[in-house]
C-alpha cells in the first residue's frame, strides 16, 4: 500500500539509485506499483511483469519461445517480437518509436521508451513511472548505462 512516507522514501531511493536524475527535469507520472516493471512498460504493457521465466518464480511474462537467460541478447529478442530492431541512437526520428535497454556489468537491468515528445518514460522497478529528458538520465547507478537502442515504425497516429 502506498503512503506519503513510503513515497518519499521511494523517491529518495530513486534519486540515489539513479544519481543523474536530480540534475534532470524528470517528473513522476504514476503511483508506485508492482503489477508491471520497466521491461513491460517499455514494451507498452502495464499489466504484467516482464522478465525471463524461472521455474520457481511465477507470475511473470516473457514472449513465447524465448529462453530464460537474463542476457542482453534475450532482451533484444524479446523486443524484436514487438517489431523493434537495433538502431544507432536515441535521437527522435519521425515515424519511429524507440526503446533503450540498459545493462550493468553486461547484465540487463532496465528499459525505457521514447515518447512522441522525444522525452523518455521509465518504470523504475517496483517504484514509480517517471518521464525524463534523456535516456541517459536513469543511467550511472543501479541500472548501469544504455546497452543499445531499438526502434520500430511508430504504431501511434
Amino acid at each position, binding site marked *: 500500500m502506498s503512503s506519503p512516507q513510503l513515497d518519499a522514501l521511494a523517491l529518495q531511493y530513486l534519486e540515489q539509485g539513479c544519481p543523474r536524475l536530480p540534475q534532470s527535469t524528470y517528473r513522476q507520472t504514476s503511483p508506485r506499483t508492482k503489477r508491471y516493471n520497466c521491461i513491460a512498460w517499455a514494451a507498452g504493457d502495464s499489466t504484467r511483469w516482464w522478465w525471463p521465466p524461472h521455474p520457481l518464480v511465477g507470475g511473470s511474462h516473457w514472449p513465447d519461445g524465448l529462453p530464460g537467460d537474463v542476457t542482453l541478447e534475450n532482451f533484444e529478442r524479446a523486443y524484436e517480437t514487438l517489431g523493434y530492431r537495433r538502431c544507432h541512437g536515441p535521437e527522435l526520428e519521425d515515424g519511429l518509436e524507440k526503446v533503450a535497454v540498459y545493462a550493468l556489468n553486461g547484465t540487463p537491468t532496465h528499459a525505457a521508451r521514447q515518447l512522441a515528445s522525444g522525452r523518455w518514460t521509465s518504470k523504475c*522497478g517496483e517504484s514509480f513511472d517517471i518521464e525524463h529528458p534523456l535516456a541517459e538520465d536513469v543511467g550511472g547507478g543501479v541500472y548501469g548505462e544504455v546497452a543499445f537502442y531499438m526502434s520500430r515504425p511508430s504504431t501511434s497516429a
Partner: protein
Amino acid sequence: MSDTIDLGDEFDADWIGLIDEGAPAPDAWDSANAPGSIKAKFGWDDDYVERVNPSGKGIVGGTKSAIVGYFQSAQDLYAAADFYAWGIDHRFPRFTVKERVGATKIYNEKRVVGAGVLQMSASEVRETFDHNRMIWQLKCELLSSLTEIVFMPEYQRIIGLGPQVVPLIIESLREEVDHWFWALTSIVGYDHGAGAETMQEAAERWIAWYDALMGDE
C-alpha cells in the same frame, strides 16, 4: 591466577544468551582479556582467530578458509556450525569457563539454536516476517530482476520461517501483489500459481488455494 573449568562437549544452556545482535562489530572490540568479557575461538585446533568482547555480548571468530566473523544472530551461528567446531572462553575475574563443541553436535543439538529459532512463537514469526519484509521491499524498490529480488537475504530468511509464515504471506498478498510466489512454492512444495501470466493472477490463485485449505470457500 585463573582456574579453568573445561565443559568439554557439554553445553552450557545459557550460552545462547551471550549472542547479542546489538553487540559492536569485532574491530571495535578491545583485545584485552578483560574480566567478564567473552573470548571466542572458532575453527579447528590452532587455526582460529580469537577476539574479546568486553561488553560480554556477542562472539566472534574466523577460520582459515572462511572468516565466519561476527555472528549477528543465532541463525548465523547455526549455519556456520554446520561446518565448524567452535569454542568460547567465558572469562571471569577468578576463573575461566571453556566450552568446546564439535560441528556435528551443534548441528544436531536442537536445544541450542532451536531455543531461539526452531521454536519461535507466532508473535516472533510475525515480528521476524514484518521486519524482513520491510527491508526486502525497500531493497527491491528499483529492481526488475526476479532472481535478484528473491535471492535477497531477507527474502530467504522469510522462507526459512517455514510453514508458519504462509498465512502471513497470504495476508500480505491480499493487501498488495508482490513477488511471494517463489517463497510460497518453496515452503508449500507445489506451485499453486503455475501458469499465471500476471502477478495479480498468480496472487489470486495462491489466495484461492489458501482459502480452500482453510475452509473459507
